[in-house]
C-alpha cells in the first residue's frame, strides 16, 4: 500500500529535503481542484474514509455554501512512490480558481516547486487556466498537465489533451488523465509528482529563513502564521523575529497541517507548516514577510510578494451607527486572513461613519461583506463599487480618487482611469456577440487566437470600471455561460468621465455620487432619480430630486408634498392607543437620516444602493 501511517512517516524537522515535494493545484474555477485534493487526502490516508466529506478543505461556511474555494489550504501528505518504493512527503496546496483570488494563487505558488494544471475535460481550457498557467511559469514551476473529470460522458480527453499540449509545449500523451470523483489515475498522479517535481533546495545550516505565505486569526489561538521554510530550521524553543519590523516573538507552537494542525518538533528546509506566537495583533504577522530566529538572524530577506493592489473600492457602513467599533475590529481580523483587503475610515453625511474598503474584485467584495456580517454579526450597507481614478486639475495638481464624493470640484484637465487587459475564452460561435459587448464597453481589440478549431481567445483592453459594472454578468448571459473571462490591470488611460451628483432638495447625497462615462451619465441620473422618487416617503414639502454634473442638471424628479398625515378621530378611548403609536413613530423618526430637511429612512438608502442584480441574488438565495 503506497500510503504511509503518519506516525511512521518522515517527521517534520527530520525529513530530508530530497524526500519533499511541494506543489499546488491550479485551474479555472470549478475544474475540480478541491475534489482532486479530497482524493489525495483519502488515498494517502491522512483523512479516514468515515471522516471524508466533499471539498474537505473548503472549511469556511461561505465556501461550502457557494461551492467555491476562497482560501488556499496547505496539507502535508506522506506517500510511498510506486516507482522507486521510497517514502516522500508531499505538501499539497489547493488554491481558488476565481479571478478575484489570483493573489491567493500567486502566494501559494511561491511556496512550491511544482504545479498541477488541472483542466476539466468537458470544458477545456478557460480564461483562468491560462492566467494561472502563466503565473506558474513566471515562478519557474514544473507544470504537470492533468485532464480531470474523465468519468463524465461529455469528456473529450483527446481534444483537450491536444489543446493543453499545444499550450504548454508538450506531447498530448504527457497529459495525465484523472477523475477527482472516482479517484481514477490519482495514484499515478501522486507518483508523477514525486518523479517530475524537483525537491526543494536550501541550506540547513544557514540562519533560518521562512516565508509567510498566509496567516489567519483564530479566536482561541490568536494569529496562526503559515510558512514555508527555505533555509535553516524553526523549532518551538526558538525566539523568532520578523524581518521587516525586527520585532521579536516567543514561539508557542510549531506544526504541520495534516489536514488538522499537528504540533511538531520543528520545521526544516523545504517544509511547509505553521507557527503560533500568541500574538494577538494581526498586523504583526504580515504575509510576504520573512521569519528568522532572534539568536541567529538572517541578513537577507526572501523575495516576498508584491502587495496586491485593490482594484475596486466601496464604502461599508454599519446599519446601526453604534456598531462602528465592532466593524473596525472585524475588518482588522479579516485583514489578517485576507491580505488583499485594505480599508480606511470614511464618513458619509448620508450613512454616518464607516470604512472605505479596497477589494480585488466584485466577488471579493461580496465575500468580505458577507464574512463581516456573519463572523462579526454585523448588518452592513455597502455603497456602489468604484475604481481608482487619478484626476489632474488645470493647475497640474494630481489627486487620487477612490470615492466619487471626493472628486474635486474645480476645473479638471484630465481624468485617468484603470485599464485592464481582458482575455475571453469562448466557443468561436460567440465571437460576434463578445466583440459587440466589448465594443459597447469601450474596449479596444488587442488580438484573437484560435486555441483549437472551435475555441477562441479574444483579448481586449477595457476600462476596469466597465468590468466592475456588470460586464461579467452580461458576458455570461450573452454566451449562454460558455465564455470565461480573466483580466489583469495594465495601467491607466484618459477617460471622458464625469461625476454625477444626486441632490435632494438641493443637498448633495454623497453616497449616491458616481463617476461615469459621459455617454452614460444621463442614464445613471435618470435611474437614480426615479429610484429615489419611489423610495423616499413624501415630506411636508415638495422634494426635488436632481442628478447633476457640476451645476448642470441632467435629470430631475420630484416627490410631491404629503398632504394628509393625521388621524381624524381622537376621543377618550383612542388616546392611549394613539400615544403608543406616536411613541413608535418617534422611534422610527430617530432612525431617519436627515439630508438637509429631508427625512430619508435608512431602508431607502439601502434599497437605492442595491442593484437589480443584488435583489435577484438575494431572491435566489432566499429560495434555495
Amino acid at each position, binding site marked *: 500500500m503506497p500510503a504511509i501511517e503518519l506516525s511512521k512517516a518522515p517527521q517534520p524537522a527530520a525529513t530530508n529535503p530530497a524526500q519533499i515535494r511541494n506543489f499546488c493545484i491550479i485551474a479555472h474555477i470549478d475544474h475540480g481542484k478541491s475534489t482532486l485534493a479530497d482524493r489525495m487526502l483519502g488515498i494517502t490516508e491522512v483523512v479516514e474514509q468515515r471522516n471524508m466529506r466533499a471539498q474537505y478543505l473548503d472549511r469556511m461556511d461561505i465556501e461550502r455554501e457557494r461551492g467555491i474555494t476562497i482560501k488556499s489550504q496547505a496539507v502535508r501528505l506522506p506517500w510511498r512512490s510506486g516507482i522507486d518504493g521510497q517514502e516522500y512527503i508531499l505538501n499539497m496546496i489547493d488554491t481558488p480558481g476565481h479571478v478575484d483570488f489570483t493573489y491567493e494563487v500567486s502566494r501559494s505558488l511561491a511556496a512550491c516547486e511544482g504545479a498541477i494544471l488541472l483542466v476539466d475535460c468537458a470544458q477545456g481550457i478557460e480564461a483562468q487556466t491560462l492566467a494561472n498557467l502563466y503565473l506558474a511559469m513566471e515562478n519557474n514551476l514544473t507544470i504537470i498537465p492533468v485532464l480531470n473529470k474523465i468519468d463524465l460522458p461529455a469528456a473529450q480527453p483527446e481534444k483537450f489533451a491536444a489543446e493543453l499540449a499545444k499550450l504548454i509545449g508538450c506531447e498530448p500523451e504527457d497529459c495525465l488523465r484523472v477523475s477527482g470523483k472516482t479517484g481514477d489515475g490519482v495514484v499515478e498522479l501522486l507518483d508523477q509528482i514525486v518523479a517530475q517535481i524537483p525537491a526543494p533546495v536550501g541550506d540547513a545550516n544557514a540562519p533560518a529563513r521562512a516565508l509567510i505565505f498566509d496567516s489567519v486569526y483564530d479566536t482561541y489561538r490568536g494569529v496562526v502564521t503559515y510558512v514555508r521554510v527555505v533555509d535553516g530550521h524553526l523549532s518551538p524553543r526558538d525566539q523568532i523575529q520578523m524581518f521587516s519590523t525586527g520585532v521579536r516573538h516567543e514561539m508557542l507552537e510549531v506544526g504541520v497541517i495534516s489536514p488538522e494542525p499537528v504540533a511538531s518538533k520543528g520545521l526544516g528546509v523545504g517544509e511547509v507548516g505553521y507557527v503560533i506566537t500568541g500574538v494577538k495583533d494581526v498586523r504583526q504577522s504580515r504575509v510576504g514577510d520573512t521569519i528568522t530566529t532572534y539568536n541567529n538572524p538572517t541578513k537577507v530577506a526572501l523575495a516576498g510578494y508584491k502587495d496586491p493592489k485593490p482594484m475596486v473600492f466601496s464604502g461599508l457602513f454599519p446599519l446601526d451607527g453604534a456598531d462602528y467599533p465592532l466593524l473596525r475590529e472585524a475588518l482588522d481580523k479579516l485583514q489578517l486572513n485576507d491580505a488583499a483587503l485594505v480599508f480606511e475610515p470614511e464618513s458619509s453625511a448620508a450613512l454616518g461613519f464607516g470604512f472605505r474598503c479596497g477589494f480585488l474584485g466584485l466577488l471579493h467584495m461580496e465575500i468580505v461583506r458577507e464574512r463581516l456580517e456573519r463572523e462579526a454579526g454585523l448588518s452592513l450597507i455597502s455603497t456602489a463599487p468604484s475604481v481608482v481614478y487619478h484626476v489632474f486639475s488645470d493647475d497640474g495638481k494630481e489627486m487620487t480618487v477612490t470615492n466619487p464624493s471626493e472628486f474635486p470640484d474645480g476645473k479638471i484637465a484630465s481624468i485617468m482611469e484603470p485599464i485592464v487587459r481582458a482575455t475571453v475564452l469562448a466557443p468561436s460561435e460567440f465571437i460576434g456577440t463578445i466583440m459587440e459587448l466589448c465594443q459597447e464597453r469601450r474596449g479596444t481589440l488587442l488580438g484573437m487566437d484560435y486555441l483549437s478549431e472551435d475555441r477562441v481567445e479574444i483579448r481586449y483592453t477595457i476600462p476596469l470600471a466597465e468590468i466592475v459594472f456588470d460586464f461579467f454578468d452580461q458576458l455570461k448571459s450573452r454566451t449562454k455561460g460558455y465564455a470565461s473571462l480573466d483580466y489583469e490591470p495594465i495601467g491607466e488611460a484618459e477617460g471622458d468621465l464625469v461625476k454625477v451628483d444626486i441632490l435632494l432638495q438641493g443637498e448633495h447625497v454623497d453616497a449616491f455620487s458616481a463617476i461615469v462615462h459621459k455617454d452614460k451619465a444621463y442614464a445613471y441620473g435618470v435611474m437614480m432619480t426615479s429610484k429615489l422618487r419611489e423610495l423616499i416617503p413624501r415630506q411636508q414639502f415638495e422634494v426635488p430630486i436632481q442628478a447633476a454634473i457640476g451645476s448642470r442638471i441632467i435629470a430631475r424628479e420630484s416627490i410631491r408634498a404629503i398632504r394628509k*398625515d*393625521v388621524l381624524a378621530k*381622537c376621543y*377618550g*378611548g383612542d388616546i392611549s392607543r*394613539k400615544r403608543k403609536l406616536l*411613541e413608535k*413613530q418617534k422611534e422610527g423618526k430617530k432612525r431617519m437620516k436627515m439630508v438637509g430637511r429631508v427625512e430619508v429612512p435608512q431602508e431607502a438608502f439601502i434599497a437605492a444602493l442595491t442593484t437589480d442584480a443584488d435583489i435577484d441574488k438575494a431572491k435566489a438565495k432566499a429560495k434555495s
Partner: protein
Amino acid sequence: MKRCGYCDFNTYTPAELQITSELSEISRSYIDLLIDEAKLARNQAPQAGAIPTIFFGGGTPTLMEPSDLARILQELKASFGFAPDIEITIEANPDTLSLEKLSQLRATGINRISVGMQSTSPHVLKVLDRTHNPANVGSAVKWAREAGFEHVSVDLIYGTPGESLADWENTLREAIALDIDHISAYALIVEAGTKLAAQVKRGEVEVPDDDLMADKYLLADQLFSAAGFEWYELSNWAKPEGECRHNIAYWQGRNWWGLGPGAHSHIDGKRWWNVKHPATYRDRLLAGEFPAADSEILTATQIESERVMLEIRLRSGIARSSLDAAAIDRLQSYVAGAQLDAQSWADGLVVLTQTGRLIADRIVREILL
C-alpha cells in the same frame, strides 16, 4: 341587527352574545349594571364635584329605552349632582328615531343629540355597511328640534372608497342645510380588525386616497365656515356656542369616568379601561368587583406627549412657552410653510392652519422628537 363595517367600537349584537330576550329587557338589565358601576365610581372619587357633561355613545344608545336612560341619569344626579348648565349628549342612528322617541329622550334631561348621518350617497353608505335611509336624517333633525333639543349635530365620514369629490360636496351641502349647530367630519380610518380592513386587505375595496381626502377636508372647511360653522377641533365645526364641551374635555386632558364594558376613564394621570365583554363586565359587577381590565399610570413624558398630541387639535392651540427651545426652532419651518398660523405664532400660540391641520400628526412628532 348589524354593526357598521368600519366600526371598531366595543360593540356586540344580541346574536353574538346569544341573547334571545327582548331588546327592552337587555336595556333594563344593562342599565342596572351601569348604575352599579356608577356607585363604585362615587366611592372611588369622593372628591368629584357636580357633573358638567355626560355623553351616551360608542354604539347606538338610542336602542335603549328612554326610561332606562332616565334611571341612570337620576342615579348620577343623586350621587354626584349636576352642574346647572350640564350638557348631556346622545348619539343616534337616524333610523332609530321618531318624534315620540325624541321627546321621551329630551324629557330625561338629554339636551344634545348627535346624528350619524355619515353620507348622503347610497353607494358610500353601502361600502360603509350603513343600513340607515339617508332621507331619515332630515326628519330626525327636524323632530329633534321640535322635541326641544338645544344642540343638534351630525357626524360625517369622507374618503370612503368610491366616494367622489362631488358625492362629498353633496353630503356637505345637505348637512349645512340642516337646522343644526355642530358638524363632525371624519376622514375614514381603516381600523385594524374591522370588516372594512379585511375587505381592503383582500383587495375588494380600495385603500382610501390621502390626497383626495385632503381635498375633501379643504372643501368641507371652506363650505362649513361659509355657512357659519367654525372649526374648533381638527374634525369638528360649530356655530357660536355649539361646541361639544364634553369632547373638548378629552382634548384638554380633563378627568372623566367611562361607564360600561370596554369604557375608558382618565382621572389625574391614571388611565384604565373596563373589561370588554358584557358578560365579564356583568360578572365582575355582580361580584361587587371593579370592572377594570387594566390601567396605566402616565409618566411625566407620557402626560406631555398626550398634552401636545391633544391640544394641537384644538383651535385654542398650544402655548409656545410650554415647549422647549429646540422644538420651537423646529417649528419655524412650519410657520414659514404656512402650516402654523403666523399671527397666533407671533401671539405666542401654536395653532394649525387649514393645511397644517391635515398634517397635525407630523407636527406633533416634530415637537416631541
